[in-house]
């Protein structure tokens, strides 16, 4: 089946991308050395204390895996929200996750607590819960209400972040760096705590492929097909938020992946989510991986924030999509 071949192809591409990522950066390491470093560590052969081995194993490998997981989570969440809200401009942050995470992270940074990652995660989850409750109190809980509540709360949260930044002169660099999104200094601890959550979110969304398909025809149509709307919406938002909150906790605000990759995915395999979710996940992972590679090499030894790079890549791509119609 074409879809299966495409999935396999992308998976292979992602694996290749991972290997390549291990060799690029401020310090170019040839492929042979990369393999040697990995092999050395895996087989506990002569203790790999060479610098290259350290860079490859402690720095680049967890970071590359994290980038891939992050991209997968965000792209899948974006695809799911575009279906639920029947809006091609929906992205994983549309119901407040990014605003909440930014506020959590900024609070942690500004008050000096070493809890930025958990604070960001908690912030994202709490914001989505707030949006969910707000949408219900506004009347019939529906996709439209979620979008509206999300827009309102996001604005509120981002002004709160700006206010905090204004009031607290110091630590601005750290807040900026976090907001611009990046994987600098991320290693195995970050990967261990967040990657399973991201992948769980992706798996959950993949399982929800059929309800997502049904929702693309509209809520009433989906209901008439036998879908319990409240439960479906809850499950989808929960899975997507799990992936998104974990992604934002690990890497800050990295936009465009969740918005653009599903569009590309739909062009490749159509709108059926059984294929769209995994394709988006693989393509998203690949995209963030490549962006992170660029971030580390383009002006080495200086590192660019990945979120900013994504925007630079994403905007022209978006315009091209617009042109194609």
């Amino acid at each position, binding site marked *: 089946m074409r879809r299966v071949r495409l999935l396999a192809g992308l998976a292979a591409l992602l694996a290749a991308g991972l290997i390549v990522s291990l060799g690029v*950066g*401020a*310090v170019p390491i040839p492929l042979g050395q990369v393999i040697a470093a990995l092999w050395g560590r895996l087989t506990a052969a002569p203790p790999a*204390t060479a*610098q290259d081995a*350290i*860079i490859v194993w*402690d*720095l*680049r490998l*967890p970071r590359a895996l994290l980038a891939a997981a992050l991209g997968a989570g965000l792209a899948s969440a974006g695809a799911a929200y575009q279906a639920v809200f029947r809006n091609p401009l929906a992205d994983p942050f549309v119901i407040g996750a990014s605003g909440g995470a930014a*506020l959590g992270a900024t*609070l942690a940074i*500004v*008050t*000096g607590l070493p809890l*930025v990652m958990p604070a960001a995660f908690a912030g994202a989850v709490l914001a989505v819960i*707030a949006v969910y*409750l*707000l949408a219900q*109190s*506004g009347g019939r809980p529906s996709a439209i209400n979620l979008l509206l509540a999300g827009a309102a709360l996001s604005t*509120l949260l981002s002004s*709160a972040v700006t*206010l*905090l930044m204004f*009031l*607290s*002169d*110091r630590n*601005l*660099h*750290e807040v*900026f*760096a976090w907001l611009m999104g*990046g994987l*600098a*200094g991320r*290693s*195995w601890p970050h990967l261990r705590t967040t990657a399973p959550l991201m992948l769980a979110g992706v798996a959950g969304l993949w399982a929800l492929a059929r309800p997502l398909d049904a929702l693309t025809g509209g809520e009433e149509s989906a209901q008439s097909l036998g879908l319990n709307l409240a439960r479906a919406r809850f499950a989808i938002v929960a899975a997507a938020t799990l992936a998104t909150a974990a992604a934002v906790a690990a890497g800050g605000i990295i936009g465009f992946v969740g918005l653009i990759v599903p569009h590309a995915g739909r062009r490749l395999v159509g709108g059926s989510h059984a294929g769209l979710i995994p394709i988006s996940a693989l393509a998203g992972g690949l995209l963030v991986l490549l962006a992170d590679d660029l971030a*580390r090499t383009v002006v*080495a*030894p*200086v*590192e660019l924030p990945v979120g900013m790079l994504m925007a630079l890549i994403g905007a022209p791509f978006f315009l091209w999509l617009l042109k194609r119609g």
Partner: protein
Amino acid sequence: MSRSPLFVVLLIGIALMMVAAACAPAAAPAAPISAPATATPVPPKPTVTTEPTKPAAPAAGYPLTLKDELGREVKIATRPGRIVSLAPSITEVLFAVGAGPQVVGLTKYCNYPPAAAQGREIVGGFSAKSLSVEKIISLKPDLVFAAGATHKPVSEALEAAGVTVFNFDPKDFAGVYANILAAGALTGNPAQAEKVVAGMKARIEKVTTAAASIPQDQRVKVFYEVWDEPLMTAGPATFIGQMIELAGGVNVFADVKEQYPTVSGEAVIARAPAVIVGPNSHGEGLTAEKIAARPGWKDLAALKAGRIVIVDGDIISRSGPRLADALEAVARGLYPERFK
């Protein structure tokens, strides 16, 4: 929506956050770093021990006209009795040349000399937006010292109100000497200014001569860490960058063009510094345990030899008379046996 208690909770939450931000740990505010967002590429070669290229301050006497760092001609009619300083480095310069009694206003970060703030008004923080133009004007100053381009909005507002503004924005040691002499001339303390400059030059020469005698292959590689998240270092054009070179060290990031760039951990590991230096404002993050916990850092030569040097962040970054202290501290940190 007014029925929703959730909204009330949100409002309370935001109020709490504002309180939290305002009461954020009140440690002594670190000397503000010039924002890297406005990284101005500066030519990397510092001129240091050469004579100041600006004309020597004219003989004491008013009226006088001097050109400031932004190229503006500033006329002073009489000895200024009410001076406002908009930067901690400028405050230090003013007090060093003996113009302390003439200073009536300074910033909240002006903590040296320690008694500087007593009896004087605080006019704001360091950035332009935190300075109160009204407050400055209310002090009826004869002369205001600003720190160059970053204070442009404030200087322009002050000049529009008829206040005289003089800018200090030195890029190297020669510029600092020139500023000190200019401060002496402007405030009517030229002799004291000359003494300060002479004293600085003597101490700096002592260090540079000793450093010059260190053979190339024995020069230590230094990584200066401004902050850890994001990982920021100082480029060669910054004062600390210049001081590392002057003290006989080698900045592992001497090839970057920016002043305070964010660099990748990989690059630090690959460049294998022998010493890590950092300001005391970042002191908590610069412990051996914390650095070793970073992925891939624990095998760094600097860590293994325990060579982490903390320097006073104020003297390192303020372009004032204590630069000599700073250079001596850096030299001691890099070569503890040579410089006692």
